């Protein structure tokens, strides 16, 4: 018996003015699964994360998390219920220390992290050496990792990752991919948006390819690269590889 979906996105629509950034997107995620979300710039990947994490309302369709529609739930409530995310351009609390950034999430997000858990989390993500520094002093890749640490401190069941790999060197990329796999092995469901196909290949079980707010492919990444429509959409873009 396959596990009950943790997240079910059904014919989701999001409009900005007359423009449909999401135009009927559907997918689901089960615990422990890693789903890749790829597509050219402006295809609606970040918008999708923004709707699921409660930052944006939606204009059609539904998002069901742990059996309940998230409609009308504010972002902080969803964070407490187990949905968290990173940001494409990182948004830590710049003038607070790295440790405080993570502590705030642990206290408010019902992640019931003890001091030891937080130390362990910072250590795992190589942030422990910077624990007492202001987040604003970190470089962009470290700030992205701090976004991830903050999200993890709330003990999410669903983690939405928006272009975490950009700016990491090859060794860091491998480690990050390993960490995400590790989280999935622990039962977390992950939605991973990424342009780096090697990373996607390494981390995900399944991918969705989006174009102009629509899903054009769902399945294994290897099959996606042979799909004529996917090839057409990516052809000539910087990310076709």
């Amino acid at each position, binding site marked *: 018996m396959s596990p009950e979906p943790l997240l079910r996105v059904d014919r989701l629509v999001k409009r900005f003015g007359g423009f449909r950034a999401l135009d009927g997107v559907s997918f689901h995620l089960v615990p422990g699964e890693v789903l890749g979300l790829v597509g050219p710039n402006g295809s609606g990947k970040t918008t999708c994360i923004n709707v699921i*994490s*409660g*930052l944006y309302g939606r204009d059609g369709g539904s998002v069901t998390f742990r059996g309940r529609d998230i409609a009308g739930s*504010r*972002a*902080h409530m969803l*964070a*407490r219920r187990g949905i*968290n*995310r990173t*940001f494409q351009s990182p*948004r*830590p*609390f*710049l*003038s*607070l220390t790295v440790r*405080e950034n993570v*502590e*705030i*999430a642990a*206290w*408010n*997000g*019902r*992640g019931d992290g003890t001091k030891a858990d937080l130390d362990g989390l910072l250590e795992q993500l190589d942030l422990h050496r910077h624990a*007492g*520094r202001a987040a604003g002093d970190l470089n962009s890749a470290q700030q992205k990792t701090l*976004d991830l640490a*903050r*999200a993890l*401190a*709330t003990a999410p069941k669903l983690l939405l990752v928006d272009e975490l790999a950009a700016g990491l060197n090859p060794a860091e990329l491998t480690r990050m991919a390993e960490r995400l796999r590790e989280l999935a092995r622990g039962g977390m469901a992950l939605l991973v948006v990424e342009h780096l196909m090697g990373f996607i290949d390494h981390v995900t079980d399944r991918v969705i390819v989006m174009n102009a707010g629509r899903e054009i492919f769902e399945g294994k990444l290897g099959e996606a690269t042979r799909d004529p429509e996917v090839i057409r959409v990516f052809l000539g873009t910087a990310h076709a590889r």
Partner: protein
Amino acid sequence: MRRGLRDVLFVVLPVVIIAAVAPLLYANELLLFSFVMYLTLAQGLNAIYGFTGYLPFGYVGVFGAGAYGFAISVMILGLPPFAALAIGAAAGVMLGLLLTPLLRLSGAYFAIANLAAAQAVYQVVSNPALQDITKGPYGVSLSEVFAPRLSYEVGVAVLAATLLAMAWLRNSRFGLSLQAIREDPISAAMAGVAVVRGRTIAWLLSALIAGLTGAVFAWHISVFYPETAFDIGISIFATVFTLFGGAATLIGPLLGVLVLYGVYNTIGITVPQYFQLIYGALIVGLVLFLPDGLVSLLTRRGIRVP
């Protein structure tokens, strides 16, 4: 928590003791009262501005509501001073509650709408048509409860309570979560912080402090006009003192008041012709070179200040 205790012992306690014994050493009690009043108001403004980033330009509106809440309780209801203080504080909180929808606005619009609200309250209070209740533009006289020493002592007690509340904010999980809201409300929400609720609590605390301070002010000076209690200069002073010393800390606003209000009361009186110039230069210099206030001389070097 240990840090909180340290702040109470080494910051709150000395300030309160000095304020309490000052009248024994220095005769100008009205000036001392003004210091106590600004020390309190600057911290009250710090609660909302320093911790959530919302600047209430119309902070004096809440202060004036507290002053008139006190005055009306004494004049019309014939209440004794301590009951009137409670009414004044409640008036400040009520006005604060009325203005909570403004917390859904972004920072700049909050500041402007807040100022407009203060003006509106002033217009109502100074309206001659309400003369039977507020004495309108003719001002109030509370000579029957005039008690300069006792009201000064109550002012010091309000300062003490305010400093304790701020020491708590400075060292508590709640206070740190508020600072997360100030830094980035979207990220704060992702950290599970209830953003609107956090801002509301900080603002009501801030309003309580201003309302109570206004009520004590009314009691202490006992004769005043709407222009006195709603003087926009009070908002400006509280804001400038807080920014000058450094918001979101306990000692920043204290330093700001001691330095700037001290300068104001020395050169402002001895060489008034140069005062505006010196004062203006000081503030411009600070904005340019120390935008995070005097305390940033230390915090920049990674030193944590109370």
